[in-house]
């Protein structure tokens, strides 16, 4: 992509959903030219996520790690990842920022849009299909009860769902090649950020009591009738 680069952002471990983002970025760089940089923020074990992205074909990786990031909320995460993108842009313009659709831990799907807002980029989110010719991207998505086709000029932020592609499984050669690539680690100071106070605070977190064991019956002919009786009672 005309000397540009693709960057993907994610937070914490490379969850299953982020693999679709890495695949989308690597596949686009393969077909259009350009390079892919994998970006994450989080504790030191987030490094494993970046290693995986390198094995899948990312050219290099940036890890934002800082003790001040403990308790980061969506606003902080978006600002930090946006600063990381700006930091990478010192080495050349970035055409696409690709993310997964959600974080697995709390199913929060705020991040892609928050990051787009922090970067001031157009956003094509929740893509089930992606086309890109290097100057413009077009996606198809289903959101609520509508199917939509959206397009926007690059640079932009793209988030992909698990419908968008089939993430590659790195072969031995790819694993070997990834070992030669490095993960760069930076702190907040290097990104020019100092105040990263979150705007939310978890007050309490308690495990929910396990569900009381239910009634399980084996169908011996009256299973349907007993099922109907239970459903009728619960709906009453």
């Amino acid at each position: 992509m005309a000397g540009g680069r693709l960057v993907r952002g994610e937070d914490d471990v490379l969850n299953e959903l982020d693999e679709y983002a890495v695949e989308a970025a690597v596949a686009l760089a393969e077909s259009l030219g350009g390079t892919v940089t994998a970006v994450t923020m989080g504790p030191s074990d987030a490094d494993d996520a970046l290693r995986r992205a390198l094995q899948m074909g990312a050219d290099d990786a940036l890890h934002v790690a800082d003790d001040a990031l403990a308790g980061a909320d969506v606003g902080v995460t978006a600002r930090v990842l946006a600063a990381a993108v700006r930091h990478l842009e010192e080495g050349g313009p970035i055409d696409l920022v690709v993310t997964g659709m959600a974080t697995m831990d709390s199913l929060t799907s705020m991040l892609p849009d928050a990051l787009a807002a922090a970067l001031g980029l157009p956003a094509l989110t929740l893509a089930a299909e992606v086309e890109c010719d290097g100057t413009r991207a077009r996606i198809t998505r289903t959101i609520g009860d509508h199917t939509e086709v959206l397009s926007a000029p690059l640079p932009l932020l793209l988030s992909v769902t698990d419908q968008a592609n089939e993430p590659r499984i790195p072969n031995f050669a790819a694993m070997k090649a990834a070992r030669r690539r490095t993960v760069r680690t930076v702190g907040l100071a290097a990104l020019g950020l100092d105040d990263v106070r979150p705007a939310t605070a978890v007050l309490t977190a308690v495990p929910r009591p396990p569900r009381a064991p239910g009634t399980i019956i084996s169908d011996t002919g009256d299973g349907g009738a007993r099922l109907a009786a239970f459903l009728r009672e619960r709906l009453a």
Partner: protein
Amino acid sequence: MNVLVVLPSVLTVPHLEVIAAARTLGSVTALVVGDPDLAMLARHGVPRVLVPEMPPTTEPAAVADAAVAAVEASRPDAVLLVSSFAGKAVAGRLAVLLDCGAVTDVTGLRVEDGVVVASKPVLQGSWATECAVTRGPAVIAVRPTAFEAREEPGGTPEVVTLPVTPGAAARAVTVEAREARPASGRPPLEEARVVVAGGRGTDGDFTLVEELADALGGAVGATRVATDEGWIDHAAQIGQTGVTISPRLYVGLGISGAIHHTAALQGAETIVVVNSDPDARIFGMADFGVVGDLREVLPTAIAALRGT
């Protein structure tokens, strides 16, 4: 406390639930991006409506720009919206644009010393958390079915137009096509009080799943296996990459209970399961389960339910 509620022109049950949630916090102003349904807003106790002067849109970037203008105009303590994919996207944007706290999938709300405290389930619903928004306005995306819609008839709301220019990033996105999926006549999955879902055990035939859903007045859902196989539309997928549901009653048919699926139904009040495999993981979370063949158990059950 002043509360701004972000709404589209066509109001469905989850929007009315958010209005009810907002009324528990204080006085309500609605931002309606599009043509406001003033009669419905009056019936649900909304006294004031802000209407942005901009083309109608559902694009989160443009809705967020309108919401920022509405926040500047009405200085609310909290901004409430529906915790749908689109609502969460707007919430994430507001967290950045207003430098404030946003919480999604909220199931309960209270105010403590002027601070909005939101309850939400996390980690596949296995933990209940309370999250305080320490820097406002508190942006709260409310999970459908968590609150009860409640009418509170009032006068016709005062309508105030709001000049809004969507930002360059919002204007750069072109909607080339937008099509409603064919109406099924069933309630939408996210907001349904009853959900009947089918998995691998249906062997691709969703007829009995649909018949039971219709007998119970519920929505039809599915596992990822079923949608990946093309047995039913992808939009029916309940799971971490699909829809999260919180119905009063969930009925799982031929579903083993992979974490991908069960993580998204922890909000279900009652869980009922039919599966031929007695070792299926989902029986562990069932209030009532039948170990049996769907083709033998369901026709009797459906007939019995129709007969009442």
